[in-house]
């Protein structure tokens, strides 16, 4: 089953990649005593100023080239979230290939729900913010 092996491989690669990015991020944070424009003390604070709302996606890619610890960590999280999403997406293609139209639709609905959560809700909130 081509697809199932692809999915399993993707899972493996995704988790390893995510773990690696997180590890690098932590090390960088410690080495640089901070990241993303905040010192380590501020980051450690358990009710932090530095969190996912205060750190926009655009910053992340700039941060990678600058060896910024926080950026690596956030990228690691993004990869992690992408894993189940990719799984759903790959499944759509698998059902398409099997010409299982019922499940193409079902899987597409699940995928749309994921997209709604990621894109639509935030922009709806932004409208209120």
């Amino acid at each position, binding site marked *: 089953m081509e697809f199932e092996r692809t999915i399993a491989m993707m899972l493996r690669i995704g*988790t390893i990649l995510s*773990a690696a990015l*997180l590890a690098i991020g*932590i090390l960088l944070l*410690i080495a640089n005593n901070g990241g993303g424009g905040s010192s380590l003390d501020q980051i450690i604070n358990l009710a*932090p100023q530095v969190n*996912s709302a205060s750190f926009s996606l655009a910053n992340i890619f700039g941060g990678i080239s600058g060896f910024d610890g926080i950026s690596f*960590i956030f990228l690691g999280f993004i990869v992690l979230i992408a894993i*189940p999403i990719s799984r759903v997406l790959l499944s759509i293609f698998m059902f398409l290939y099997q010409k299982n139209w019922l499940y193409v639709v079902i899987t597409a609905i699940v995928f749309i729900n994921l997209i709604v959560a990621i894109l639509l809700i935030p922009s709806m909130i932004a409208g209120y913010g």
Partner: protein
Amino acid sequence: MIVLLYVIALLITGVASGIIGSLSGLGGGIIVIPILTLLFGVPLEYAAGASLLSVIATSSGAASAYVKDKLVNLKIGMSLEIATTMGAIAGALIAVFLYSKSLQAIIFIVFGLVLLLSIYPVRKSFTLKNDSHTKQDSTTKKFQLSGKYYDKAKKKVIKYSGSRWWLGESVMGIAGIISGLLGVGSGVLKVIGLESAMRLPVKIATPTSDFMIGVTAAVGSAIYWEFGYIQPFILAPIVMGILFGSYFGSKILERTSSLRLREFFLFILIIVGIEMVFRGLGVA
């Protein structure tokens, strides 16, 4: 070097959580959130965000082995995910609303109650003799709920059929809401739903649930992320710990007495459940 101590403490928490999660099927959230809130004093919303990402880590780590063995019923899992994802969106939005009004005490209490309430079904599932998984109904054909797998223990191919899709969907909707609201994976509820409501064999229910919790948690994570409840420093060591822990956990799974394990975790459920309720009531 407080930083290093912190990182190590969080790493150990993650590893322990991953091992316990993969051994018991209880999932990372049930362990991670109480530890972070009760032990480390992390505010609940950040613990919940951390937990959701942890669930994805546990799910992806454990599930890759199952997929290869064809033990995940992708169709059943995916069709039920329609309800779970919608529930998770609703649950997450409710949680965000409650947090914004500083009403997290409600969430603590709900969390504790859910833990305590799940004791009975979990206890019952130990002795459940589920032989009815060849029963079919109208939903079995409609939603293609049949399948087969090779049982390594019995050394033969077992055929099975799921049924009562609508009931399964309802249970999953509730599981989704709980997932989004509390920041857990709802693995327990999902396995119960798959085994009891849809009459699936255990060996299919558990891996399928593992697959499902990942998708559900992704939905919750996205929304929590947007509201800033993902804190990088706490999360990174924990997630790393879990990725390792769940990998090793599934390795030693075979050599442990599952009954003993489950008794132990029931015990934990009770203690933690009570603590969470107390915390919500402002006592702890």
